[in-house]
């Protein structure tokens, strides 16, 4: 953000704008960029999702709109969704029904503020960035519960209840998997965590030691559960709950759920990139000119892996879901935390 404010200052000429105004301009610009990134990832990833699903099921996927392999399909989809009638069910709790998509959307938008895409390119370089991201994304659960309850529909309520139970449970292994990284980096600041991984692929936290690698896998699996995707898509199981908590939503309100879902998908991948995969660090010589592209490429690869998993694996049962979380992932994450600590004491020389 400092770079953005500096850019504004240079355009307007030094000293012509007050520091307060510059701060506001910088913050607004960064917020706009983040919102555009969110919209862009919804557009790109819906197309990618449908293409990958097509390839996995031996068909083409969208081919018609926009000449080349249906590249304009998501834009057509968006136009269609915006034209849909906005329906609020007669028995719904109107205020919460309207409020819920915004709570959900704000929760995922706020978390973007602390993601470091490149050196210096982070909207808010917070001391406790990692903690802040978890705190902001915990608002998503409230949005899900509100939407399910306000719809006054049994499928929505079941979907919301499942969603809340699942997200609250999987937040624990997710957070525990990140703790060893904080231990190694000695900081909760996202930029510090990425900087600690610079200087070769073996510096990436996922590859530092076997425990951290397992932590990375736990984080990755738990993050799939956090964004409610197959094999953990119990909150929106089509075959049982119609569409789960957003069954009653249509038009623009549904678009908000949709947008937040894909933004969250990309968000958890960005966190994994920054925390475990070295952020903008890379082993290729001559690629230093575009750190943000390296970062985005890694995150997109993780998203593609999540799409691949979604279209390959069947869905878990509710009891299996809870079993995996509480009896497998959490103990394993604790073992990894202890193991990383011991490894650090044994093999890492303190400066």
């Amino acid at each position, binding site marked *: 953000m400092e770079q953005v404010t500096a850019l504004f200052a240079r355009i307007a000429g030094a000293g012509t704008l007050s520091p*307060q105004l510059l701060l506001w301009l910088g913050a607004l610009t960064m917020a706009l960029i983040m919102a555009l990134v969110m919209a862009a990832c919804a557009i790109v990833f819906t197309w990618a999702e449908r293409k990958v699903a097509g390839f996995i099921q031996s068909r083409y996927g969208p081919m018609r709109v926009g000449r080349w392999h249906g590249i304009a399909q998501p834009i057509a989809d968006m136009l269609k969704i915006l034209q849909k009638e906005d329906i609020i069910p007669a*028995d*719904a*709790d109107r205020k*919460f029904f309207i409020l819920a998509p915004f709570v959900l959307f704000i929760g995922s938008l706020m978390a973007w503020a602390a993601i470091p895409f490149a050196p210096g390119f982070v909207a808010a370089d*917070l*001391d*406790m960035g990692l*903690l*802040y991201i*978890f*705190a*902001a994304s*915990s*608002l998503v*659960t*409230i949005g899900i*519960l*509100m939407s*399910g*309850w306000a719809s*006054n529909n049994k499928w929505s*309520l079941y979907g*919301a*209840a499942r969603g*809340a*139970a699942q997200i*609250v449970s999987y*937040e624990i292994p997710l957070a525990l998997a990140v703790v060893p990284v904080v231990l190694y980096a000695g900081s*909760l600041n996202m930029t510090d965590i990425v900087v600690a991984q610079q200087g070769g692929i073996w510096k990436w936290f996922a590859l530092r030691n076997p425990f951290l690698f397992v932590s990375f896998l736990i984080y990755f699996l738990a993050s799939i559960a956090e964004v409610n995707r197959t094999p953990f898509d119990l909150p929106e199981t089509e075959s049982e709950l119609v569409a789960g908590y957003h069954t009653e939503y249509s038009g623009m309100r549904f678009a908000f759920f949709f947008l937040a879902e894909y933004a969250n998908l990309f968000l958890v991948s960005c966190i994994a990139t920054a925390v475990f995969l070295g952020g903008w660090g890379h082993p290729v010589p001559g690629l230093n000119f575009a750190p943000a592209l390296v970062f985005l490429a890694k995150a997109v690869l993780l998203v593609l892996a999540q799409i691949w998993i979604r279209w390959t694996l069947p869905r878990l049962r509710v009891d299996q879901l809870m079993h995996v979380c509480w009896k497998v992932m959490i103990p394993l994450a604790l073992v990894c935390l202890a193991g990383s600590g011991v490894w650090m004491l044994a093999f890492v020389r303190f400066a």
Partner: protein
Amino acid sequence: MFESVCFYLCGGLMLLGGIMTVASRSAVASAVWLIFAFLNAAGVYALLSAPFLAILQVLVYAGAIMVLFLFVIMMLHGPVMNEDLRSRSRWFWPALALPLAAIAGSAVTLLGRARGGAFPAPAPHGFGRAEQVAALLLDRYLLAFELISIVLLVAIIGALSLGLREGRRT
């Protein structure tokens, strides 16, 4: 200037949230207003240079505890609830008087301190950061910290055993 605007905004909205929490008709609305109040409380903490506390306020209270509250309320009441919860009991006036007395008392104390010049104390550098809270919790108050975790463990086991006994009876 800007900071005091933020402070009064967050403080006022927090008060509004608190009042609406007790004044709302439906339990779910109360819970959502309480979340609103907690978020504004986090804003006040952040302005008082306690960022760690602010983030924990959102993470633990708004994000985890209130989610459980909402979950339980929704499970117990099912669809939209319309009963009026505001029936006056004979405890209404005492229940109103107690917090008012507490507010008046703390206001008098704070004003007295402000006149004495001991307030507001400037926060030292690095105040309220994770490192400092960790140093306090894991060094100075280690025993209390560990004891609290044992108390919480006992509470979990107690809740589990009560719940299991209930389940067996039916």
